[in-house]
């Protein structure tokens, strides 16, 4: 699967970005490059156990405005495996609680001579705003319900590792699609690589509008289980909901939990993913979470590989002429003149 082994001297010129903000605006080729690079780094670090020095001298800041243990740890380890220094920055206990704006906070960190920020925030678009205001790399580690690009990549990486090629595969995303950044990053990545995507859940969590993006919408898990090659079971994001979108957890689990019973009607080689933290008994029962087709722990391992690839591609040595090209400048695009 991976292309010719890479020496990791300089970042390939076909990768023009200094940021990783979302998967929506990456090309299929760029996504493949990320996945291939992750595979090479996974091998070069012996399954993430050996250290490299390809980011030696770089300083990466974990700027987390929202609680996270797994993603933060994964990014820290990924950076250290590549020889970078990592600074942890938590919103609580910082000047943010004293009323400083997040942009000012980030500019202060930038002034200390860092190379990239890995940012998590509860508001969509915050990494994009940072990318506009800072002159360092910005990596989105989850912005509200918008995107979580490295999670989408690691899900796709895990699928690709098993299936070889995901074009033509049918992937069902089940659960709280409305509030899930993982869902959005998965949808973009999967569509760009040619997979068929089904989103499944109650209409209060799964809008008909997904069809406008070329995604199939289903409200009946039993109907889609037999057709899927992969099921990705997403957590209910109680913290992002104004009013509860279903009558009870019990009823939700009855309709949408992936159970051993439902697994019997699936293809034998159905792959089960769950980005976690999983709520056993809500979106997935224990027998399914721990079944042989479950990739839940592979996902965690592969997360490290994908994050190493992301950090290297955005912060690694580049040829001089590439320096400006990668500045994605989101803003008013189509219009501007009347």
């Amino acid at each position: 699967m991976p292309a010719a082994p890479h020496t990791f001297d300089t970042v390939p010129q076909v990768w023009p970005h200094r940021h990783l903000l979302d998967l929506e605006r990456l090309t299929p080729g760029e996504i493949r490059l990320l996945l291939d690079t992750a595979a090479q780094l996974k091998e070069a670090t012996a399954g993430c156990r050996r250290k490299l020095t390809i980011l030696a001298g770089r300083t990466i800041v974990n700027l987390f405005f929202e609680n996270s243990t797994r993603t933060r740890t994964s990014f820290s380890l990924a950076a250290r495996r590549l020889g970078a220094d990592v600074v942890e920055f938590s919103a609580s206990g910082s000047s943010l609680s004293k009323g400083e704006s997040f942009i000012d906070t980030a500019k202060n960190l930038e002034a200390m001579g860092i190379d990239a920020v890995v940012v998590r925030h509860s508001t969509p678009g915050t990494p994009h705003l940072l990318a506009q205001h800072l002159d360092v790399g910005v990596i989105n580690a989850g912005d509200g319900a918008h995107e979580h690009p490295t999670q989408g990549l690691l899900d796709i990486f895990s699928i690709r590792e098993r299936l070889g090629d995901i074009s033509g595969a049918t992937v069902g995303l089940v659960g709280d699609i409305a509030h899930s950044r993982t869902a959005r990053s998965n949808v973009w990545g999967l569509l760009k690589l040619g997979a068929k995507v089904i989103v499944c859940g109650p209409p209060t969590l799964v809008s008909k509008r997904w069809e406008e993006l070329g995604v199939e919408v289903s409200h009946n898990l039993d109907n889609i289980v037999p057709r899927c090659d992969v099921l990705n079971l997403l957590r209910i994001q109680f913290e992002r909901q104004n009013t509860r979108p279903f009558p009870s957890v019990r009823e939700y689990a009855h309709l949408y939990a992936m159970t051993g019973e439902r697994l019997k009607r699936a293809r034998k080689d159905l792959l089960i993913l769950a980005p976690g933290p999983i709520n056993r008994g809500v979106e997935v029962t224990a027998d399914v979470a721990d079944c042989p087709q479950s990739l839940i722990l592979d996902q965690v391992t592969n997360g490290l590989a994908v994050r190493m690839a992301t950090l290297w591609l955005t912060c690694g040595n580049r040829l001089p002429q590439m320096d400006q090209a990668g500045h994605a400048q989101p803003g008013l695009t189509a219009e501007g003149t009347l």
Partner: protein
Amino acid sequence: MKKTLLISGGRVIDPAQGIDRVADVWVRDGRILAITGGTGPGEPLPDSADETLAAAGLIVSPGLVDMHVHLREPGREEAETIATGTQAALAGGFTSVACIPNTEPPIDTQAAVEFVHQKAVRADTCNVFVVACVSRNREGKELAEIGQLVEAGAVAFSDDGAPVYDAELMRRAFEYCRMFDKPILAHEEVLELSRGGVMHEGLVSLVLGLTGMPAAAEEVMIGRDTALAESTDGRLHVMHVSTAGGVDLIRGAKARGVRVTAEACPHHFTLTDEALRGFDANCKMSPPLRTAADVEAIIAGIADGTIDCIATDHAPHAPETKMLELDRAPFGILGLETAVGLSVSRLIATGRIGWPRLIEALSTLPASILGIGRGTLRPGAPADITLIDPDLTWQVDVRSFRSKSVNSPFQGWTLRGRAVATIVAGRIKYRLA
């Protein structure tokens, strides 16, 4: 010694009198003296004027009236003051503004109305008319002292920023205002439906993962208020209509004879929710930018008169508040200094409406809804006049704005049409350098 001003050779448009012709406008002592070329005797004109403005190639319009402006004073003087906001109004071609009472404290007493009037006199810029609160302290619980506020000079009532939520209170307000013949300016929003929202609920909000404010949040409330206005024979003015469904509801209510008028904002007929893709807080306002279909319905509503007037909802915010994350940044954008350019670019240059209709929407009708005795060049009327260059193309630069704030999503846009002179009571208060 009576002072005279001659505005010569412009295209004079006064929808109130059905005038649209090249003519001279004579002003004496702060009032319109005559428009030349008319029929009837009229007053003899002076041989020469004390001051002359050559207006060939320009539109000579009754002074523009913006009936929806947030001047922020008292309470938010870091964002705008009565002095700076009215300077911005003059630069935008407006000779009169109606200021909305969601200040801190809100304008709900005679003393507060008097404060605004005094500040406006001291600023000596454009006319400032006061919209006062419907409810005491804008809390939506009991009526403000509407009768005394009318005596103090309030021209209309509004709790804008928020809807009057209690339907019973709204009904009472319609009934009570009827005896003063004052309209209620309504911010139409069902708050439960838009709670936590930062933009229109649609495909773009779905993709961006931002909480949406559905069109139904506006439409349900317009439905309620048109029903209440109908049953009480009260006067409803729907502020900042943003949805196709809202336009339809107003069209239907008008057809039934309900006393309802409506306004639309330039940003709602210019931008769509696509603008939010850059996560720019300058594109965050309430009601939010909607879809292309809504934009089309609003333009059609302006063209057929369902939407009576264009108002800006000028909503200054200090820069630091707009540099926050999208969900923490406040709603609202500047409007006064881009209104004419956006209206000409979007409505005239595209052939959707003609100049007389635009002047009606920007002057005649807002003046008549508010009952302020302006919006016309009739002899004897106060000489509030705006000269507009219909073909001037110019680039928006917020750094040159007279407003104290810079929160405009139109920075850098090239627009067509701009006010080049603004005359209030016969005095030239603004000229484009």
